[in-house]
């Protein structure tokens, strides 16, 4: 493992190559595009193990990946925003079929108006889809998450598709010093599916429909899988730390600093909040694993806080809040406020965060402020 300085997208492409998916389906969309571009270079130069399918839409990207995974091979795609939105229907199908696909989501705002910059509306609006969702703070963590994600997704106790989310531009298009492993040290074994593989020698039916009762049971099973895998996520995270020497909180949430007041957030955005926390003395709680939602861990971390401020880059329209606020509110009863920031890629410097944070005392419980 050597540190290098590299664009976030390219670091992801590097690690995807190592993870060696057999089929990669790709469709360009800013800001995820540099990933397929780099992978295409690998392929053109004979350096890629898998086969890239250059589909005609993201609907087909996810469909081809579902097909490949159903055939029993590791499969990959990357997308953003409108592309993820176009996959919506198939996302629900993929989780229902329990296919351990991993995709990288380079988070970007949703249209209208069209905007190519970062916020989380795209993946947040897929939070019901039955997929695991991880949000990385920096490209290093995204790279590490990619490795962990395949291992988690393919674990027999899990078998769920997974989104690794990285902030568009802020991470995808930024050169950072990153440690991209040169080999995976056997950490992620080859994918040898026992449940789903379309092999003429051992025929099976996948994607059957279901009447009321089996439907209800299969959906219950899906939710039970989601809710039971916290230990697997932690375990893979801890094992990763042992092998690669990097760890992130308990694998589900990361608690940074001390303080009677807390800020909850996700993604790359946490970095500036940590800088501010150092200055103002609050605690930053970063959600790393957003689905399944680590309610117990969050409840414990927030217990007894004087105030909790959720900073987020998405909105659950009509609720007056962001989705993360709404989720966190379900486990915390004290004073809680919400800042909607950075939609459409608006830069949120530490100075702006400071101005916002200082408003917390004057704010009413459950108040939301949209801050430019």
């Amino acid at each position, binding site marked *: 493992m050597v540190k290098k300085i590299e664009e976030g997208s390219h670091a992801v492409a590097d690690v995807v190559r190592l993870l060696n998916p057999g089929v990669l389906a790709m469709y360009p969309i800013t800001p995820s595009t540099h990933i397929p571009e780099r992978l295409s270079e690998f392929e053109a130069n004979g350096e890629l193990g898998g086969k890239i399918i250059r*589909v005609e839409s993201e609907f087909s990207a996810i469909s081809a990946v579902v097909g490949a995974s159903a055939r029993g091979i590791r499969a990959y795609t990357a997308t953003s925003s409108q592309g993820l939105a176009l996959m919506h229907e198939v996302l629900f199908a993929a989780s229902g079929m329990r296919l351990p696909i991993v995709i990288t989501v380079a988070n970007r705002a949703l249209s209208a108006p069209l905007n190519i910059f970062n916020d989380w509306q795209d993946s947040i609006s897929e939070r019901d889809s039955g997929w695991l969702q991880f949000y990385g703070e920096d490209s290093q963590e995204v790279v590490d998450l990619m490795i962990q994600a395949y291992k988690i997704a393919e674990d027999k106790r899990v078998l769920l598709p997974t989104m690794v989310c990285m902030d568009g531009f802020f991470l995808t298009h930024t050169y950072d010093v990153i440690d991209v492993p040169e080999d995976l040290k056997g950490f992620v074994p080859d994918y040898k599916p026992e449940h789903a593989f379309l092999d003429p020698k051992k025929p099976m039916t996948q994607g059957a*429909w279901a009447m009321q009762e089996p439907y209800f049971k299969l959906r219950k099973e899906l939710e039970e899988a989601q809710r039971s895998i916290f230990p697997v996520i932690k375990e893979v995270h801890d094992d990763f730390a042992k092998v690669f020497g990097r760890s992130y909180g308990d694998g589900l949430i990361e608690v940074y600093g001390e303080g009677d007041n807390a800020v909850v957030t996700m993604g790359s955005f946490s970095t500036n909040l940590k800088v501010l926390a150092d200055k103002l003395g609050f605690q930053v709680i970063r959600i790393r694993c957003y689905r399944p939602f680590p309610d117990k861990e969050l409840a414990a971390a927030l217990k007894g806080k004087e105030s909790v401020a959720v900073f987020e880059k998405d909105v659950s329209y009509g609720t007056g809040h962001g989705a993360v606020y709404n989720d966190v509110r379900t486990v915390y009863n004290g004073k809680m406020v919400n800042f909607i920031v950075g939609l459409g890629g608006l830069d949120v410097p530490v100075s702006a965060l400071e101005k916002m944070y200082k408003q917390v005392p004057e704010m009413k419980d459950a108040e939301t402020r949209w801050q430019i």
Partner: protein
Amino acid sequence: MSSEVISSGHSACAGCGEIMGERMVLEAIGKDVIVCQATGCMEVTTTPYPKTTFKVPWVHVTFENAASVASGVVEADRKLGGDATVLAIGGDGGMMDIGFRALSGALERGHDILVVITDNEAYMNTGIQRSSGTPKYASTTTTPAGKVIPGKLQWKKNIARIAVAHGAPYVATASVGFPQDLAAKVKKAKSIRGPKLIHLFTPCPVGWGFDSSKTVYYAKKAVETGLWPLYEVEHGKLKIDQKPSFAPVEEYFKGQKRYKHLTPELIAEIEKHVKDRWAELEKQEAAGINLQLLP
């Protein structure tokens, strides 16, 4: 009882031409196959969890994506060292309408897949609604023949020619009324690398409103009247497989509820269309032109 590829016990309607066609296709392919099925009658009547009609690998994902699922399956299969015939199969709705972007993309990319459209000329699974495969003037539940509109107003979409224009190396039409012809075409398709498409005519007793015993009758009549030409286009070259006797189209319409409102004028219009089209088809075959012509 059951065939090598599917089992009885499915819930397709009595007399269903589509399941007949799907079985014929699968039997012609044999067991080294992976089926990617679009939503529709053939999915809903065959695989009520935890039961399945199929004895070969079969997958269904959504209505729109059989061809893209097949794209992923075939590339994965080849990576894994397999050489299965990867079949993307769906109805006229699943392939010619909502699934057509996926189909077009798969043809254009050139995957080694076989596409079969089991065309019963409407969305049957949801109750006989108009598709682009519905023939002109047919009455469906969304193009009912009424006081001011006599059924569907457009001609049927020419999916075979569209597939040819995509550069698919092998495209053919077929009908469940002619199983040997169909089997031969499936086998020919299997022998060719790249994307192949067979547009298969599969009458539906319920959707068309005829007696369940008449499925094969109509499957043959459509060919005999010239309404459903049987042809192949290999690498752009058209070859007509069977010249019809040109029985009057009325013989074909008779006994089908979807056509019972047809007036002599409308029938005459269709009759003329069929004749003109055949004249053209023969001219094109004779001219030996290449219908692909990729830029």
